[in-house]
Structures are given as C-alpha cells and as structure tokens.
C-alpha cells in the first residue's frame, strides 16, 4: 500500500472543476482548497510505481491542472519487502 500527500495547483477558473473530478475518483481524497488554486489531496495505490502512474494520469486527463507536487509518500509494503 502506498499513500501520497500532494498539492495540486490549478488554473484559477478551473479549481472547482478539478476538485469535482478528483472527488469522483475512488482512490483520491481531497482535503480542501487553499488560496483558490491549491488543492490538497491524498492518493492511494498499490505501490509507489502505481502512485506515479496515477499522478501522471490525473495530470493528463483532468483539465485545469497546472502542477502536481507530491509532498509525502509512504510505502509500507515496500518497506517490509526491503527489510
């Protein structure tokens, strides 16, 4: 299981649209909008690799996203494998 905390920067007029799209997604939880253009969200996926893929997909498919900053990634399963 991998979890990422991200900041998504949107075009000012597309913020609500992006928020709606994100909320429709099963593996995404949003935690509010700040400064009208920054959405805080958490992505969940099976591995850090699928997290990356997910981030790419979201960025490519949702209109109005200018940037996506992962701020925190935890991968407990991978940690255990590593150990």
């Amino acid at each position, binding site marked *: 299981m991998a979890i990422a905390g991200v900041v998504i920067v949107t075009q000012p007029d597309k913020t609500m649209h992006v928020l709606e799209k994100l909320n429709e997604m099963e593996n995404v939880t949003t935690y509010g909008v700040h400064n009208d253009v920054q959405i805080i969200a958490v992505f969940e996926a099976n591995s850090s690799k699928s997290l*990356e893929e997910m981030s790419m997909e979201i960025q490519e498919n949702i209109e109005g996203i*200018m940037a*996506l900053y992962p701020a925190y990634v935890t991968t407990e399963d991978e940690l255990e494998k590593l150990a």
Partner: protein
Amino acid sequence: MRKLFIVLLMLVTAGLLVNLTSLKNAQTKEKHPDVDFSVSCVECHTEVTPDVVKDWKSSKHGEMNFGCYMCHGDGQQEFYARPGSQRCISCHPAYEVDFSKTKASNCFDCHQGHTLKFHKTDE
C-alpha cells in the same frame, strides 16, 4: 533514512506559481547519472561541481565530513536531487520544527542546502 517518508519534492510555498516549468521532475523518481561508482561522491564532484563542494566544505557538515550521501543518498540505490526536511530531522531531532508556527515550510526555506547558512542574512 526513513523509507516511510520519501519526500520527492517539498519546495513549494511562495515560489510555487513561478516554478511551474519544472513540474515534470516532481513525479518521476530521480536518477543520478550513471557514472563510475568506484569513485567517491566528493572526489568526482570536486571536478564536476566544484562550487557545490566548496560550499559544503565551508559548512558544519563539511567540517564534520558529513558527505553528499547523507542528504542525497548513495546515488545508486537511493537518490534525492533535492532532499526534503525529513532527512534533516533524522540527524537533528532536537530541531524538530512546528512549521505551522513559522513562515517557513521546510528547513531549506531558511538554510542554504550546502553552506547551511541563512539565505537572507548571509546573501
């Protein structure tokens, strides 16, 4: 290193909107160029990035010989081009900062990464 907190990029805050061009890096795991890894970090970087090595040497880390790998990883199995605050805290737990109470959002808002000096007062 704490695997738990792999911080890919944390330098957001004020510079956020200005920095939009460098976004792609944020999603891909960074890779150190494939080099001759039988040469130590410092030895090679003294040639390729002498200014960075000079800055580092002038710092407390340099004095203590706490090398590149401490913050940036070994370059092969782990590599962080721009390491985040969590890597600082592992060695400096006494400086655990509640960033909600400061204007800064991470260690490097105030400290230059290599000299470790304060950006504003020293520049």
